[in-house]
């Protein structure tokens, strides 16, 4: 796509990866750093042309280590900056993500999942839920993780990712998958809908007319590290209070709630519709924020529903978080698939019916 898309009037038909990239440009992303990897290479390709056209910064990084650390460097000056990658290469960024948490920098990372572990393959997968939500970097930290399920949500949640990263001054990840990255859907860009966050209290600009600032993670004294981590985790508490987002569909009277995240939510909704047509009381629930996770809402659902079914294109990762929130009150079953396409609607319906029969 040698597109000149930036702002558009009305809906456009566009691939998920381009939608993410264009939304980042509209959000005011000043610097993009990246290294190619399928299935997200279109993001870097779009950015290489667009950022130069707009006089913003683009660097073809020598590696994902380089890319994440360039993003950290750019963010330290208060600008909006991002990198994007996929699965095995997000692994390479884990060190940087841990540092960015410790540095309290609004680094935006787009992760378009492919199959794993190892090199795996380029088929759609949701096998990096844990990589995103729990993380593979060292130390106690969390990052904000948003999971779109449609191309329109790719746009809306890219805006939100930039906003939350800056509002809370911490790394935030948009977690998409190969299916979303590669599919085309109509979507609307509009304007960046959030206020600009004032970073002037902490950003590095050169110590002119003020004391110098050091952004560092080194905390040689244990007491200092305790103070810092308590502060960090208080911030996470505020996030859990205020920023949880989810999509629910006919859950109020549902005996069975089917939970999924990202693109898997599409077939789940279709399956729920099919079940309702058969007169079965089934609803769908899909977290949009994987961190902060909608623990409280799921706990509520565990009081109103009789059973929960979790469906993912992995071996059961969000499953664990759902079970923690349900805390044993009702059965939580799993329908998964290691990698490939979404689970078929008929298979989800069949699974739901089997749960009702028991």
């Amino acid at each position, binding site marked *: 796509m040698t597109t000149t898309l930036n702002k558009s009037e009305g809906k456009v038909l566009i691939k998920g990866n381009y939608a993410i990239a264009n939304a980042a440009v509209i959000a005011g992303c*000043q*610097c993009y*750093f990246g290294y190619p990897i399928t299935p997200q290479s279109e993001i870097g390709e779009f950015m290489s042309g667009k950022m130069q056209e707009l006089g913003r*910064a683009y*660097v073809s*990084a*020598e*590696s994902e*280590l*380089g*890319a994440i*650390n*360039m*993003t*950290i*460097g*750019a*963010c*330290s*000056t208060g*600008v909006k*900056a991002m990198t994007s990658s996929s699965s095995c290469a997000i692994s390479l960024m884990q*060190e*940087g993500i841990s*540092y960015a948490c410790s*540095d309290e920098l609004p680094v935006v990372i787009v992760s378009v999942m492919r199959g794993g572990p190892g090199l795996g393959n380029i088929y759609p997968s949701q096998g990096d839920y844990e990589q995103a939500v729990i993380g593979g970097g060292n130390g106690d930290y969390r990052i904000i993780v948003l999971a779109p399920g449609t191309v329109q949500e790719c746009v809306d949640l890219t805006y939100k990712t930039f906003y939350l990263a800056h509002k809370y001054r911490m790394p935030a990840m948009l977690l998409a998958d190969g299916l979303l990255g590669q599919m085309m859907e109509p979507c609307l860009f509009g304007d960046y809908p959030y206020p600009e966050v004032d970073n002037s209290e902490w950003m*590095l*600009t*050169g*110590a*002119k*007319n003020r004391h*110098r*600032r*050091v*952004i*560092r*993670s*080194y905390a040689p004294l244990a007491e200092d590290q305790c103070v810092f981590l308590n502060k960090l985790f208080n911030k996470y508490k505020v996030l859990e209070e205020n920023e949880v987002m989810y999509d629910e569909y006919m859950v109020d009277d549902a005996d069975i709630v089917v939970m999924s995240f990202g693109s898997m939510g599409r077939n789940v909704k279709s399956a729920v519709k099919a079940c309702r047509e058969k007169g079965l009381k089934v609803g769908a629930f899909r977290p949009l924020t994987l961190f902060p996770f909608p623990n409280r809402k799921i706990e509520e659902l565990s009081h109103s529903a009789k059973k929960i079914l979790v469906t993912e294109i992995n071996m059961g990762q969000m499953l664990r978080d759902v079970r923690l929130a349900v805390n044993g009150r009702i059965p939580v079953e799993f329908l998964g698939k290691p990698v490939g396409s979404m689970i078929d609607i008929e298979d989800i319906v069949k699974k739901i019916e089997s749960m009702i029969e028991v």
Partner: protein
Amino acid sequence: MATQVFKVPDIMIDGFKFGFCPGCDHGVAMRLVAECLDELNLQENTICASAIGCSVCIYDYINVDTIEAPHGRAIAEATGVKRAKPDKFVFTYQGDGDFASIGLAESMHAALRGEKISAICINNTNYGMTGGQLGPTTMVGQVTTTSPTGRNLEYYGYPMKIAEQFALCDGVAFSARVSLDTVPNIRKAKAAIKKAFEYQIKGLGFSFVEILSSCPTNWRMTPQKAHDRVRDEMMKVFVPGVYKDILESKQV
């Protein structure tokens, strides 16, 4: 009337005390960096990317905005800073392990891209902070805690000549190696650092100074012996000089 001929650079943090081992050259090197920043009036416009190892301490001594990078990633973070804010003066201060081993890809590609940043690299032929292990510049035959019988080629291969290697990168405007073993050489070192900084200000490309430094504690030597080693051994292999200067058209 009395004239002040020597003073602590203004940019040094008030009341600082170097915490380096006796005889270590980090203090001299940092002071030279400070003097150059002062003389070029850069304090208010500088962002430093510090590294990991003994060099991380630079923010305890030099009073500029600083971001502390993970090991080997100072050049990447400096790249991000400079790309985001091209009007800022951006430099790194790293050890040879940080710059030329774990961070070699970041360093070399920034040099090839001609990033308009300056890198100062301390070469003390070992990993100092962790207790003197073999690094990318450990000399053939040198005993370290991980080369107990000396660096032999069969097990360890050759050390890297950093200033020469980087002079080969087309994006490099200035690449030099200096030594701090004598007062005249310290003067030359300062001139090289200043030139590197000036080349960034002029937007000429990536500028680099490798500083040969003593590490008496890990070398198990007195400060005097350590400086003798810099002169008698290191400078014979790591020969000081300007390896690239695009304004002088000097190239290897």
